């Protein structure tokens, strides 16, 4: 297996994956911080390095609409966006899923307006969490690259046929350079295989009607089938993650557990904060606090049973959400994880801290302080706020 060690930003890593995937069509519109993905990819198109037809649309709504048209026609299709761009696509995200199209998106997490802000949080991706897209978060450039390659196989899996977004954290990952392993074009192409659309609309000899109107007699069945596809995606994600591991070395599942086995306190998070959290865990362990970390890689489908099982024996849990559901009940990761853990009836204290909105930095020391104070509160029998905010001026 041919690996090359190179320095790449998150955006460069994603653009490289898209070049290797060599999609038939890419439709996109510029938006910070995802712009660069398409900028780099456009140079590949201009230099004839890919077979892709690039459709540079006049809006993200049209980018997703053109992508849907292309995928319906029978083309393997990709796009990239962030923030307001993803928000402008929301209507079409639901339709891409409802039409069961395995579209692939590179999504660079960025805060939503207002106030306008170009930096990282997960509010944009969370806004699309019930749209029927598989959502995979990446901790770093390597994962962004690996996840995008796996995304093709997961989305196109015959039990799934759902659109997928692979996310990185805006600027923190998208614009930060790291050493990553790039695999050879041939191996990536062997891994993803060729796209064989079931019923391409371009096959005029077998004309199909796409996007029919359902009344009360069929809509529910179609949505039920969609829900089943999302459940089926769990097996596909594991299957593809294992195969990726056997081929390229790094296996992927629903989550990554770090020093969790004997942990008395664990933080749970998505994306790049896991890197910061691992340092905090190491420091806490040096101080004698048995800390651990659970990085959730797959948010949709939500691996509820698996996450709950992995956290079953951890008494103190702190869920860090980089978005606020504005529901007066904490962040989305917290709400879903809490629901998942309800069944185990174990004696946990699960708290939630919303942090890092609009790119507010989260520091190793802050996480250490947070986890150690949770441990001392528990030891001293003191109560602790279940839901709160970290790193904000109140």
């Amino acid at each position, binding site marked *: 297996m041919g690996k090359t060690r190179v320095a790449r930003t998150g955006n460069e890593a994603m653009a490289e994956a898209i070049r290797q995937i060599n999609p*038939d*069509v890419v*439709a996109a519109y510029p938006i910070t911080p995802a712009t660069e993905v398409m900028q780099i990819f456009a140079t590949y198109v201009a230099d004839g390095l890919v*077979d*892709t*037809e690039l*459709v*540079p*649309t*006049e*809006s993200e*709504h*049209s*980018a997703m*609409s*053109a*992508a*849907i*048209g*292309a*995928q*319906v*026609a*029978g*083309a393997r*299709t990709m796009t990239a966006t962030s923030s307001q761009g993803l928000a402008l696509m929301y*209507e*079409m995200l639901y*339709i891409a899923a409802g*039409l069961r199209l395995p579209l692939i998106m590179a999504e660079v997490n960025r805060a939503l307006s207002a106030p306008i802000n170009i930096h990282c949080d997960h509010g944009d991706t969370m806004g699309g969490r019930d749209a029927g897209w598989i959502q995979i978060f990446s901790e770093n450039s390597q994962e962004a690259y690996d996840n995008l390659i796996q995304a093709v196989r997961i989305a196109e899996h015959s039990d799934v046929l759902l659109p997928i977004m692979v996310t990185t954290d805006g600027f923190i990952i998208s614009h930060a350079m790291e050493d990553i392993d790039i695999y050879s074009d041939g191996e990536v192409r062997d891994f993803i295989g060729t796209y064989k659309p079931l019923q391409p*609309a*371009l*096959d*005029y000899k077998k*004309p*199909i*009607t*796409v*996007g*029919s*109107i*359902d*009344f009360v007699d*069929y809509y529910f069945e179609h949505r039920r089938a969609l829900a089943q596809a999302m459940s089926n995606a769990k097996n596909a994600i594991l299957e593809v993650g294992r195969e990726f591991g056997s081929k390229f070395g790094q296996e992927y599942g629903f989550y990554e557990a770090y020093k969790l086995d004997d942990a008395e306190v664990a933080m749970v998070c998505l994306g790049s904060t896991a890197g910061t959290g691992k340092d905090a865990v190491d420091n806490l362990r040096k101080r004698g606090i048995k800390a651990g970390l659970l990085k959730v890689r797959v948010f949709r489908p939500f691996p509820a049973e698996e996450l709950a099982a992995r956290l079953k024996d951890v008494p103190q849990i702190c869920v860090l959400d980089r978005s606020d559901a504005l529901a007066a009940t904490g962040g989305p990761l917290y709400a879903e994880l809490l629901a998942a853990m309800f069944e185990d009836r174990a004696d946990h204290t699960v708290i939630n801290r919303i942090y890092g909105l609009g790119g507010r930095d989260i520091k190793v020391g802050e996480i250490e302080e947070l986890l150690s104070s949770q441990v001392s509160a528990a030891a001293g029998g003191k109560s602790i706020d279940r839901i709160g905010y970290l790193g904000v001026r109140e």
Partner: protein
Amino acid sequence: MSNLKQLATRQAPLCGGHRACAGCSAPDVVRQVLMASADPVVVGSATGCLEVSTTIFPYSAWNVPFVHSAFENAGASVSGMEAAYKSLKKQGKIGDEKINFVAFGGDGGTYDIGFQSLSGAMERGHNMMYVCYDNGAYMNTGIQRSSATPRGAMTTTSPVGKVIQGKQQQRKDLTACMVAHEIPYVAQTTPAHWRDLNAKVEYAFSIEGPKFMNVLAPCRLGWGYPMELTMDMCRLAADTCFWPLYEVVEGQYKLTYTPKEKKPVEDFLKPQTRFRHLFRPENEHVIAEIQQEVDRKWERLQKLCTL
């Protein structure tokens, strides 16, 4: 152009049994446009009457590939299909038979909510035809005014009240907007002028690049005329010069129909209940304004045709 006998032998791209109203002109527009293609077609559509009345699951009235995804994106959606065709053909993943890509949208989906998507698709130069079936209001949701609704028309959002009576604004000239895009082909016609429509579509399919057709599509429910008069309404629109038939090829204007005698616009307005209130004495000035506007645009068009 094909003669009637030739056209009659082609398989109908849209079969009967759909749920469009009796007297609806939209299916006529679709049949005439698609039957003018000697090559296979792939169709995209905006949400609207046409789409909901022809695709009630598990049935479909379409004998050709038909793709609908949303209301405001027929331009973008078909541009994506055309890009897929180009890419797959170039890579040898599909055969190299010519396919004509056609987008259909009503005036709501074209003049209003889908205007940007249409503009973008035309500017990018996709080899596709966009056909607006213009019935002059949001008929699918129950006759609300659009930017294509003519001055004075009563709709459910421009009702006839005690103070305000019907739509206050003149309609947007979308055909002119599309001419301003400087695309290879722009035309305006009606399904009653089937030779004209057929000739325009056949020509448009013979050239590369983006094409736009604005086709008047009377709606008996929204306009309020007896259902058997649909084609008469088209003829009256053309004979009063309310809806001139013309084409613009590479920027050159050409009238394709000149009425022997230009009829007063009242002849077009009178049979339609949406204009009934205009015939009250206090509203005579509105009819005069409409006539003035028709005259102004007709004269301008004639001048453009001499350039």
